[in-house]
């Protein structure tokens, strides 16, 4: 019970009701509960055994001393944090910072543009609606490689190659389809009549948006932002090509830090893997609900 109270309350009543209904006899119930508990335990172990080993393995590799790195029987050892120290010393904090800033600004830009669009598509009927909506969703299907070259040429023409601005511009564009889709499904939960009656009552457009729509769409905006952020953070191919020196991102730096072929590459690789994964783990822990909701809605991820 205590564990369950930690997680969302939405299943509580439901599960309680089921437990009530299942209680046809006290003895049968306890036998069933024991079986069920064993069953749950086995399932939890299986689930964790499937998901966790690669994470634990990366963490272990990143703190295993260089000399015994390829010694696989050595599971217990005095950990070394040399690689994390090297990471800070090697100036790789700057690319991680660039990633953080550009991913955040990109995510915010996406949410603003996609939010406005999704609202319109949800609450307004107009002639070209379907066409425009499809137009926004269409890029979802382009493999990233397809648009790399023209984008590089465009950025060059604009003089934006190797700038953080270029990354923000691109990131916004990448995630608009996804965010529009997610927000559209979130706005679908907002009764249309609510906005319509407000409009009939003479409420102004900004009032409708800020007083009625935005508060209701809060979780959706959050989900869209988090997902945009994560995809921006993970993006590799575009930063590799369109940035050079001043706006290098963490994902590109990972590759370079590990490619010194005279070093034993695995330890360093694992260290950056861990560092790149930390924000993801934090997001999962902090925003489980929104993420689940966002991902379910955004199955058509961009």
């Amino acid at each position, binding site marked *: 019970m205590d564990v369950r109270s930690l997680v969302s309350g939405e299943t509580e009543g439901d599960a309680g009701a089921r437990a009530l209904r299942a209680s046809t006899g006290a003895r049968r119930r306890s036998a069933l509960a024991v079986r069920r508990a064993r069953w749950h335990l086995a399932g939890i172990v299986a689930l964790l055994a499937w998901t966790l080993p690669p994470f634990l393995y990366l963490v272990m590799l990143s703190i295993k001393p260089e000399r015994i790195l390829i010694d696989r029987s050595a599971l217990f050892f005095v950990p070394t944090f040399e690689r994390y120290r090297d990471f800070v010393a090697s100036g790789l904090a700057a690319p991680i910072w660039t990633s953080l800033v550009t991913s955040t600004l990109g995510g915010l830009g996406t949410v603003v543009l996609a939010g406005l669009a999704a609202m319109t598509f949800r609450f307004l009927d107009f002639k070209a609606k379907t066409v425009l909506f499809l137009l926004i969703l269409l890029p979802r299907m382009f493999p990233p490689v397809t648009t790399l070259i023209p984008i590089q040429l465009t950025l060059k023409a604009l003089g934006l190659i190797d700038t953080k601005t270029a990354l923000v511009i691109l990131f916004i564009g990448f995630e608009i389809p996804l965010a529009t889709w997610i927000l559209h499904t979130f706005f679908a939960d907002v009764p249309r009549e609510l906005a319509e009656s407000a409009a009939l009552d003479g409420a102004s457009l900004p009032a409708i948006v800020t007083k009625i729509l935005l508060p209701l769409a809060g979780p959706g905006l959050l989900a869209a932002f988090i997902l945009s952020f994560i995809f921006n953070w993970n993006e590799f191919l575009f930063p590799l090509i369109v940035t050079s020196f001043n706006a290098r991102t963490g994902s590109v730096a990972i590759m370079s830090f590990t490619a010194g072929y005279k070093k034993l*590459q695995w330890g360093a690789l694992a260290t950056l893997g861990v560092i790149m994964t930390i924000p993801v783990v934090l997001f999962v822990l902090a925003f489980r609900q929104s993420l689940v909701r966002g991902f379910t809605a955004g199955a058509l991820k961009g």
Partner: protein
Amino acid sequence: MLQPRSDRHRAAAGVVTALLLLLVGLSPLSQSSHAQGMTTLTFLGPDFDEWVAFVKVANQIGKPMGIQVKPDYLPWDDVFQKALIDSKSGVRTWDYVYVYNTWVPGLSAAKAILPINDFMTSPAATSAVQPNDFITLTTAGLELNGKLWAMPMLAAPYMMAYRTDLFANPIEKKAFQAKYGYPLALPQTYKQLMDVAQFFTRKAGEKLMGKTLDQDFYGVVLANKSGGFLFHRYEHILVAYGANLIYDPKTMQPTVNSPQGIAAAKYYVALHKYMEPGSESLTGGGAERIMASGRGAIAMDALDNMLSVLPVAKLSKVVGKINYALLPTQLASRPHANVGDANGLAIYALTQHRDAAFKLATAVLNTQGTKQVMKEYPALVPMRASVIHDPEVRTNYAPVFNAMSTFLNGKPYTVFIPPLKEWVQAQDIYEQAMSAAMSGQQSVEDALNGAQAKVVALFKRQGYIK
């Protein structure tokens, strides 16, 4: 019902954090653009120890000159791609570009780098380069059309590192003589190398030098990762078997599936049985770690790769048990056949600091500067005669000096890669075929015939042949 509210709190916290990020994030932008009177040169290269050392020394030497160097490291093969694409799209960010000798034809044809000769306009500038000091056996790969395209930094002569204790062991000597009918010695031909590799390949539980092994032991250790590592090891065997490197420069006809080429490939695929398992995913550094853990009899690699791991006590269990020798051969007319590999520092064609870049490059890669780099990276194999013969180098870097003397005195048959601007592409085609043959995906003949067809198609597209 608590959920939505706490979500809203989190969202608010998120917005505040984002705004803070924005403020702080943009401030360093304005700072970094106003460097305090220093000229900043950027370096595009791989994160190799010798280049980390180079950057460090360049900053020391550059400081009184008002020049600093900031590196941007990328994976080795991506450096080539990045330099090409950036120069084609007019990116002016770079000043220095790392080049490997196989990249010189491609980068120079694409006008991505400037020849060093362009800077040698005055006697003073020429004497800063000291062109006559270069050991041509090592630097010829960085030359093309009579011009030097990069300041030579590190020679990568391919050699063997072998376990002296194994080759001197009486039990092993006796067993070898009994099995092969000739005495155990350092292989002079690839046939002998195959015998030695086969002989020393042992499973855990078998004996080596009279002691039971608790781990497998490998006859020969090589790095076969795709992306250049495989081809840069295989190419020496190709030359030793009398084959051309991919095509005949006189007729421009691709020769991937020539009889010599097929014989060399078959040999390498057969030798693969005696290499360390997983060699396909190893770079030079990874392979030398296996050798350093005492699990291999012979390693074949670029000299500095071996020197930076095998004699270093922190990394190696075979310190003092290793000696270096020239590669074997297969044709008597091509003794110690090898391909001359080297890397150097090129000046990016769109640099905005031409003069500063040249000035600092010559200041760091002259005799004195090279010695300073060697202090940071003792495995550096220098390409200047004045450095090799420096008494200080001779005493302080004995392993380098001895190995390099062996190399220079052995007068190896050295070829250099031909001036084909699509060399990297052709090499990639060949390497993929080798990988297919080694994994058993295709027979050697099928793989090389397929690669031949692809290289022919490439040459036709470029109009070299009809």
